[in-house]
């Protein structure tokens, strides 16, 4: 998320709270987690190797509160998902997710059309990734934030990519080139409470293949291989 200066801290702290609040719901989930280790994954009980990772993993539930399935986390504190499989945030003590996000597919593009102008433009990094994403934010999300409007960002700035599992995640994929691409069925910039949306979003990725990460706070989110 954005850095905030002191002058704006009051309002800005409120604005990012929805992400924090929803993120913290994971922290209080008490289901066991299986962590990816090396070429596989390792369990949460084995203990992470760094303090930061430990902190991030503390927010991760050990199992899916809704399905009971084991939650697998890579060494970058990203919950591992397959394309089409939703990442979820669930309030402690409940089974129904407050937020779900699913990356259904990833297309790798060498160029796109400059929206409105018709010219071909190239990515500033290496490849454009065209993501088919759906997201759902429960209406109840508004009750846990102080603001009038609860939302979860869904634009390119909320995503990252890595070259592969357990590899470092890079963000800043929201280049002007990515923003300028003419996208059919463009995804809304955020999903609001009570809304369920689906659409396409463009990332400007340095990797032609690897993993897409949804991690608006950059403290650990979900990852899908492409």
């Amino acid at each position, binding site marked *: 998320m954005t850095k*905030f200066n002191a002058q704006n801290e009051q309002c800005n702290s409120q604005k990012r709270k929805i992400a924090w609040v929803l993120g913290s719901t994971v922290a209080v989930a008490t289901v066991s987690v299986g962590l990816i280790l090396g070429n596989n994954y390792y369990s949460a009980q084995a203990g992470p190797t760094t303090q930061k990772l430990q902190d991030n993993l503390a927010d991760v539930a050990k199992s899916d509160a809704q399905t009971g399935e084991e939650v697998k986390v890579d060494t970058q504190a990203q919950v591992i998902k397959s394309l089409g499989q939703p990442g979820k945030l669930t309030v402690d003590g409940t089974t129904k997710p407050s937020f779900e996000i699913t990356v259904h597919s990833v297309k790798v593009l060498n160029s796109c059309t400059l929206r*409105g*102008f018709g010219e071909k433009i190239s990515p500033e990094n290496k490849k454009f990734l065209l993501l088919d994403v759906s997201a759902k934010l429960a209406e109840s999300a508004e009750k846990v934030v102080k603001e009038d409007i609860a939302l979860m960002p869904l634009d390119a700035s909320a995503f990252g990519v890595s070259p592969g599992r357990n590899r470092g995640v890079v963000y800043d994929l*929201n280049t*002007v080139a990515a923003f300028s691409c003419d996208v059919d069925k463009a995804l809304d*910039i955020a999903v609001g409470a009570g809304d369920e949306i689906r659409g396409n979003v463009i990332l400007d990725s340095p990797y032609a293949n690897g993993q897409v990460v949804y991690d608006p706070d950059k403290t650990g989110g979900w990852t899908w291989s492409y």
Partner: protein
Amino acid sequence: MLKEELNYQRALIAVLGVASLFLVLLGSTNAHASTLGQGVHVHLGAYDPENAPPSKYIKKVTETKTTENLNLRKSASTSSQSLGIMPKGTIVQLTGNKSGTWSQLKWGSKTGWSASQYLSTRAYTKDDSVRYMTRFTSIYATAARSTKIGAVNFHSQVSLLDVSGTSSHIKTGSYHGWVDSKNLTRTRPAKQYRYVQKSGSTYLGIDPKTDTYAGRVHHGEKYEYRRWDGTNRRDEINVNGRWVWTSVTNRDYVAPQYRYAQSNGSVYSAASKTNSKVVGTISKGTKVRWGAWDASNRRDEINLNGKWVWASNTDRKKPADPIPPAIDVKNYDRFTTGLLTLRKNPVSNSTSAGSVKKGWKVTVTHKAEGGWVRISAGSVTGWIKGSGNLRRHGPYSVAVYGTLRTGQSAYNVMSGFQQKNTNQRLSSSSLYQLWNKNWTFLTNGPKTVVAEQFQYSDAKGPAMLKKLDIYEGQLKYQGRPMYTRQNVPLNGDTESWTYKTTSFSEKVVKNSGRYISSGDFLKRS
């Protein structure tokens, strides 16, 4: 004309001898006013129009017409076979035969009988003698056309009396005699005109040595013409209803010329400085018709209020208007409504100070009497008339405040503009940044937001707005656009298009975004 008459008199005296006793020389020409042509007239008695024989082209005619639609019958009886019905008004020829109340008549190729009561006969005089002269023409005593007795002018109406060979016997207002038939026509010829090539004198007579000054005609004037005298090289023209002679006219059109009074001053009765009197005054800037220039006295002949007078303060150029003082105003901005030529001073005949294209944003810095305003646009500064040339809203002006600004990541999108103004301020606005650092949103607010204005030409503007509408239209929340193109005020009292939050998206932005207190995208942190 008088001289010409005398020539004819001498010739006739020599030829006719005793006949000259009857010559009566009139004191002036054309003494006979007549509906017929104005001949060059010497009273010769025998050739007076009163003594003319009757015209063969004026005939008494008897004509019979039907007064109703009328049967023509084979014999004088209603039971007789009809040869046809003659429409009312049909002209028929009576044979003279009658049978009771029936008359015999011819109708085309048919001969038959009709009831006399439906036939009307009248007798009238048919005049087929009217002719016009196609040129100035000599009149002769006989058809042989050997002895001149006078002349008749171009355009004159005459009466044709008889024709013999190539000669026609005519009667004018002054004569009867013989002329060349080819100089006659049944229709009145169009009038002819001459233009004054150079202002000069007119004379009553044809001979410049002996005639009388009749007045002055002026450069560019147009007069009816009827005769050219090759010997004296003079045209006969009609000035105010009087035929006079002059040597300053020709067929070629002469465009009128004008002069302007360069100062307030007097006008004079003549060109001469020593022998003229003041007859009026003329004000600076007055435009007058010009007649002549007298180099020795350095005076122009001009037409002032319908009278030709002389002035020494006129010239071809319109005098410079007095320059009204420039009044400083609080600077404000406007857009030009067309290509404008700027003047160095707030007067219409001031020299050019450059030009500004249509659609440019300019700053008004001064005003002056007469609706003048002083504007500056880039390096160009000058005066224009404010009314109609400036407007508040730039139809193809776009204000930008984020990544489209100069040097920013999306600046290349703004190509093709004809003018750019940096460091502008959007009024009553606030700037917000969402979690995506590239997204800034203009909302209503209490302060101003730093912007740049791009002006596009009429040729490029509509397409550019369409492109930008699409470019800026993709960001949506709950399916509704975050930006729409809106007309917004700027601090210089202009209005431009910009992409701004709607009332809906403004709530989202103010709820979830970060307020940029500087109002400047470049100073966000």
